[in-house]
Structures are given as C-alpha cells and as structure tokens.
C-alpha cells in the first residue's frame, strides 16, 4: 500500500505543491493506480512481442536545420538562471 509519507515525498521530488486536504485523496488514487498496474503480472506474455507493439519502423528525419527556440523561452520555466544558463545547486562535493 502507498502511504501518505510516500505521497508527500513524491510531491517534493516532483516539485509539486500539494495542499493538506488533497493528500488523503491522492494516497487513495495512487494506491489504485499501482494495484491496476499489478494486473499486468497476470497477463500471459508468452510469444508476445512487446518490443515493437505498433509495428512501426524507420521513422526518420532528414538532416536539415530548423531554427532553435529563443533562449528566453528555453529558460522560461527554469527555477533559476544565470548568464543564459540553467542554474542548479552544486552536485560536486
């Protein structure tokens, strides 16, 4: 089962704001989603090719340059930026 603590942790990791009164509902929903996903364990998978379920192949692009997006737009959702770069907390010790 999914716990409230797990939901809150996932919310923080996903950088989502979750109001207190939403937590119970989300916990319940997430539990159901995971239960549903578990049904796949009962599916017979012998002889099935899950690797290429849509039978498509070779969807390819020509090597032609299209102008990139303006930098303001690229950085628009960045939490922080500096000198045209995304700014993140140091990952090296």
């Amino acid at each position, binding site marked *: 089962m999914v716990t409230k603590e797990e939901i809150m942790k996932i919310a923080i990791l996903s950088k989502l704001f979750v109001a207190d009164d939403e937590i119970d509902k989300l916990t319940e929903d997430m539990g159901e989603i995971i239960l549903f996903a578990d049904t796949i364990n009962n599916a017979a998978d012998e002889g099935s090719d899950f690797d290429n379920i849509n039978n498509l192949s070779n*969807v390819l692009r020509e090597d032609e340059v299209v102008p990139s997006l303006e930098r303001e737009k690229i950085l628009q959702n960045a939490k922080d930026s500096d000198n045209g770069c995304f700014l993140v907390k140091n990952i090296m010790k």
Partner: protein
Amino acid sequence: MKYELVAGFETHVELATNTKIFCSCTTEFGGEPNTHCCPICIGLPGTLPKLNKKVVEYAIRAGLATNCHIAEISKMDRKNYCYPDLPKAYQISQYDKPLCEHGYIQLSNGRKIRILRIHIEEDAGKLVHRRGDTLVDYNRGGVPLIEIVTEPDFRSVDEAREYVEKLQTIMRYIGVSDCKMQEGSMRCDVNISVRPEGSDVLGTRTEIKNMNSIAFIAKAMEYEYGRQVDLIESGEKVIQETLRYDDVSNTTSSMRGKEDANDYRYFRDPDLVTINVPRSLVEEIKESLPELPEAKKERYINELGLPESDALLLTKYRKIAEYYEKAIEGTKNPKTAANFIIGQIFRTVETESEKEQFNVSVSAENLNELIKLLDDGKIKMNLAKSTLEKMLETGGKATELIDESDMGGLDEATLNDLCKQAVDSNPKAVSDYLAGKEKAVKAMVGFVMKNSRGKADPALAEQTIIKMITG
C-alpha cells in the same frame, strides 16, 4: 614478477551531422549558451524525439570502415541516471541491439583490436561548476555520438596510441567526424587492469574517463599501470572504480564512491520505433566508402614503390592523399612528388587542422606541372627545388617562374666556364681539397649552383671541378 597491461577502449565520436540526433537544432560547436536548444533537446514533457537519418547512415559507415557486422534490426534504449547534464534524467542510447558489432582494427604489429560494438546515442549538456552552484548549457545536449567499444585487447600503451590515431584517421577519411580531441568531438574512456605475465585471467579493472588527448591517454595509462602494480606488489587489492586523470599532477583519482555503483535500468525507449537496416542500404553505403587509409598506404608501398614512412605520412590525412594523387597524375616518378610534399610543402602546414585542410599555396595541378618539367628533362632537380620554394612563396606556376632560357639545363661551355671561375676564386678550397679534405669541393660546387641560378647539374659540376684541380 612482471605484469602485463590489459586495456580496452570506449571512444565517443561526435558525428558531423548538421542537426542533433532527435531534433532539428544545429550541432554547431560553440554558440551562446542554450541557443541551440528546443523543447525536445531540453527534455520538456510531451515532446517526441525523431531519429536523424544521417546518424544511422554515419554509424553504418563507421561500422563498415572498422569491419563490423551491421545489424538488420536495431533499437534505442533509455539509460537512466540523474545528473544535471541530462535534462530528461535519462540518455537515449542503445543497449542490446547496437547498430554495428564484431569488427576490428588491425595494428602495425599485426595484432587485431576487436571492436565489440558501435552504437549511437545523444551527447549530454555542458556543466560549469562554480562555488555552490552549477551552470548548465544544453547546446551540446542531443548532439549525435557513436560509441566504439573494443574488447580488452590492448597489451601496451603504444598499441593504444596507434589505435586512437588509426581510429581518428579512419573516421576523418569516411567523413563522419572531424575527431578534434581538443574540442571534445573525440573522447576516450580506458579500462585498465594488470595481471602476472603469462596469466590468462583478467585482473580487477579501473576505468579512466573522458580523456581528450592522445598524450594524456598514454600518460594516464602508464600511471595507472604503475599504480595497480604497486598495489598488488604491496599485497593490496585494486578496487573496481571510475577514475579521473589529472594531467597537471599526472595522477588518477576516484570519481565516484563504490556505494553508487551504476544501475542504469536500461529499457527500450517507447518514443522511438525500431530501426530496420535493409541490406541494400548497407551495400549502398559500402559502395560509397572511399579507399581507406590502410589500403591506400599498402597501395602506395606496393604499387607506387614508396617507402613505408612516406606512405604513412601521405595517407594520414585524406586531403593530403588526394593532393598527392593529383600531383602524380601522368608523371613518371611518384617518389619525387612524395619528396617535394614531405620535404618542402609540409613545412608550410603546422597545426592539426592545417594538415586536415591542406590548403597550401601550391596547387596540386601546379606541382604536377613542375614534376612533368622534371620528367621531361626540361629542368634539373636543383632548379625544381628552388622553383618549388618560389611557388610556395608566390603561389605562382612553375612555367611562369622559370625563364625559358633556364629550361634544358646548362650547356657544356657555360658549365666549364663557371667551374673555372669557381676554381679561380676559391684558392683555399682548392688547396684544402688537394690536402685531402674532400668536402672542400662542395664550396666550389655551391659557387657554380649559385651563379647558374640552380640550373647546373651539381654532380656534373663536381666532376668537372675535380678534373680541373687534379687534372
């Protein structure tokens, strides 16, 4: 006890396509940070990657040029790891169905370095670490790479050096990459272990990451070999870990702790469909490959009669080989052209990129013309050499720089006259020569050459002078 070095290479080569691997942003090097980006290559949710056709073609070219088998069916996988240089928290790469497998590159000592696989993948962004934070530029993110993985077949640093040079030459020849190590378009990871000589069990290996110069690779391998031997000799164990090489201190240091051993949780990328490689495409690409450097070198040695050292120098860069082949077209002595290029023209190219471009002031056609004048006996070697110097200075044609009167060398009377002058005006050289200093004659030959403006045949002048003095 003696220890044997065992090493394997993983080489990343940036492909020279116009656009990135999964989107149409430019792959141009440099540019203001984050100006070569779009929603796909910065990994925004809801975007769909679409594979660049050229990337598949270039990878197949690379595979064929290194004797690989080209897969009929290939696919893309996600390699999961969390680091800010990857906006999606996974890199799209290939896991169990790479495009090319089981090739080899042959070294000059006859040993074959087996290539396990060549797969395609996207490059990561660039990070600049500052105190407390990190700047991220995704211009490089999504630039197409091939990763060439060898078996642990290297037994010496020299073999490693030759392999990297060969790989670089081949990739440049077939036009898939400029392989500029200093700009990062070719980078090597090396796996190294040691074992007692004669043993066939592999020792514990370490991996040195991301080296971008052949000199560093050699130094890092030597250092790491010594470090591992020291550990074993002193009864300690080599720990399997990823290392970074520091070229300033010439040491390696651990990059990641053991606790975060990698688990990339590879799985198929559901956004990208299967790649089918029809055999007809493989054949077509095979047909389009140029003669490879190794084959060219052999041909220069066997058919043109060049010494191996010349053949090696002339085939290292494709443009130089093309220049040479144009210069010898319809001429009689391929060695003469080789000497002119290696001896005189090479002096005007210094850097790697100058050699790569080989835009020299004497065109191949003009060199060809000069060699034909020699072939036809219209000019002598000395005049040809000095004319080539003038051609290098001025960019002019041989026929414009040589007087009509100079063609056909010097007539006998003029030569005799000049030799007599040489003897008369160099009494010291004459007495030196007569006293047994054979070299003294050279001064007088030099006088003749100078006053005939290179037209005289130096061997004939020497004979004539000696006859005059002794006769």
